[in-house]
């Protein structure tokens, strides 16, 4: 059972990474609007994408 001493901290580390990722996403406003991106994904066509500014940041902090 001594494997617990390694596995548990590892598991907690993974949780820590996931929590950090969530907080990062939440603070950057990824959850501000949960409806429009779903609609946008349906319409995004490659032709229109090419016209957009290259490598534009999708969303920035206000």
């Amino acid at each position: 059972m001594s494997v617990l001493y390694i596995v548990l901290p590892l598991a907690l580390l993974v949780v820590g990474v996931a929590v950090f990722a969530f907080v990062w996403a939440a603070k950057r406003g990824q959850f501000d609007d949960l409806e429009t991106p779903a609609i946008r994904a349906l319409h995004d066509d490659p032709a229109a994408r090419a016209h957009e500014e290259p490598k534009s940041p999708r969303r920035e902090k206000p």
Partner: protein
Amino acid sequence: MALAEAPFREAAAREGEPGVRCTHCGLPVPSGMEAGGIGEPIFCCAGCATVYGILREGGLDAYYQMAERRQAPVSATGRRFEEFDHPSYHELYVTARPDGLLETYFYLEGVACGSCVWLVERVPLLVPGMSRAELDARRARVLVVWDGASVALSSIARTLDTLGYRPHPYRGLRAEALRRSEDRAALARIGVAGAIAVNTMLAALALYSGWLTGMEPAYERYFRWISLLLVTPAMFGPGLVFFRGAWGAIRTRSLHMDLPIAIALAAGYGRGLTNTVTDSGPIYFDGVTLLIFLLLVGRFLQQRAQRAAGDSAELLYSLSPSTARVVEGETAREIPVEALLPGMIVEVRADETLPADGVVVEGRSALDLSLLTGESRLATVEMGAPVFAGTVNRGARLRMRVDRAGEATRLGRILREAEAGALRRAPVVALADRMSGAFVLAVLALALATLALWWRTSPSFAVDQAIALLIVTCPCALALATPLAVSVAIGRAARSGILVRGGAALESLARPGTIFLDKTGTVTEGRTALLSWEGPEDAKPLVLALERHSSHPLARGFEAAWAGIAAPEATEALYTAGGGLEGVVGGCRVVVGSPAFVAASAKAGAQAAESGEGTPVWVAVDGEVVGRARFGDKVRADAGESLAWLRARGFTPRLLSGDDPSVVASVGAALGFAPDACRGAATPEEKLRVVEEESRRGPVVMVGDGVNDAAAIARATVGVGVSGGAEASLAAADVYLTRPGLGSLVALVDGAQRTLHVIRRNIVFSIAYNLVGAGLAMAGLINPLLAAILMPASSMTVVLASWKSTTFETKS
């Protein structure tokens, strides 16, 4: 491919269906519009044709391949939107980005479905120099990014308008940014607390299993330290919110649910910490983390429901006009109201709101003062007459000289008064918060009793049981009871057109008190309409024929009331200001106007004197007075029924109006008000004073629509704004009714009472659970496992009871 396909499909539709459908919006095409052969595009209106042209030219034909398109004809306003280029507009609404581009937000009218997202976000392809448009479909708000050097904001606005999405400046951006960062922080807190709660519970599961089946002490210690490692960031991260709240409550000596919560959290964490370090006794870390998580979720839900209602109210607020048409030489140019200066000449067209205080310099018209003063009768103004911001021009075009603008106007003064009124209002303490004081005392007393009871048996056991009592009696369910019931209620209310901006308002509305009702626009419809007509049917076409030549509001009243009647042609029509109209219709000399005017041109025998409600209008044909009409403000159809309902529920409705006392009295008498419950000729200041006085005696609800009600609305225990009202009353109100009529007020009060009922039931549930927990702790029977089962069980009961509640059910 798309180029050929759209018209082709239209042609197929033409063969299959009897009605021809518009290529752009898919609605039936009116018969007069049909043009072009089979296979050619066809449109229901010029707006749709323009958009089709723009989209084809811009290479956006893919729009017509979408399955779900907006089914509405495009109605562009054709405005120039020049005010968007004005420096003062840029100062207020436009931000410069670090990359040198400019950005601003617009509210868009007409955003309806998925295709709107597609189209709006491709507007940059149509406007060179515009780099990005990002639409938030739920809030109908678009972020526009453009290069200030190569394109003007007005030209972007015009393109949006042409496509059928009328842009409005987005106000309250700063407040919005603040709220957004608050929302994001709350969400992050929930995420952290949730992850920690789940993992602590896994560790607790191992400990409980070990407790039942045996576990090596080394592993047990290991799991206890792991739990401590997990709970610490939860306490000092997300959990800090409750300690801040509790500290604030202590400092301001007010009551707040955070206080008992903080006590329980501190007790659980402190005892768990010492027990882990000394390796003895129970730890409560699983319970503590779960508590933090559940409470944060409850709070977030309530906030979100209130935000959604607030957002909708703000949208309405943004739709109110914010520009003035300034006359310079021969041309008129639109500028933001904020940029108006004394001395400017402003043009105000029919049905527009006056942007500033000043004097009429050209034209003659009738002004609707009802939003500013409550006066229901239209005021006639001409050269040299003083006019005020916030009144609506109901007649012909006027030009006025601005004397006072912005804050200095009478409207501005009233708005400041409203702000001051809101500050003077005593905050409503929610039922759950009010209970928290007694709750803390009772819990502390019980904990001390437990300590005393077990001290002689074993001091350490006594401490453990007292701490256990503090934890199990943590008012988790109690603290969830109100937010959940309120958030469910606010969400349902919004669906029936009632926007509630705070949970406290619902609780206050549930208790019977005095309801002050504004008359004009609230109890009545707030516009001049034909009340009665005494005269022959065949006189109606004659009147209509003559009224066609007038832009007077009474003329429109006739047209609205007799919409189905065809009118012949009138000749020699002549308008006398302050009198009426005369002319020849079908060979008869017809005179329509005030009794004095008509009597003067009629043969002897006509008596001009007349009394009663509203404005009398007489009709004479060939010198004979044949018809008598009365114009006035109609009482809303559902007013009587709604007032009876409110009285039956123990409320005391009273009329508080700025209109003429005799009009108020007659409306009041018709609706069953006692004479002393009706008050007329009340200025905004008087309304505020009456509400202030009455609110010393009990809860006061103020219902109104005008600027003149704003201060009273802000000061009342609960302020209710009514559909169609001024933005000032909207900004001051706690609740906004988007549907006209007093029926919504009844639905609001009924829903509020049901909500309070649900809150009370939840509180009874949670107190009952706390009594059981406290009893077990005092009897020395509690342990961490029992606490960990009892706590979520009680919270779940409350959650389910709130979700199943039937507040604000639509009755229709």
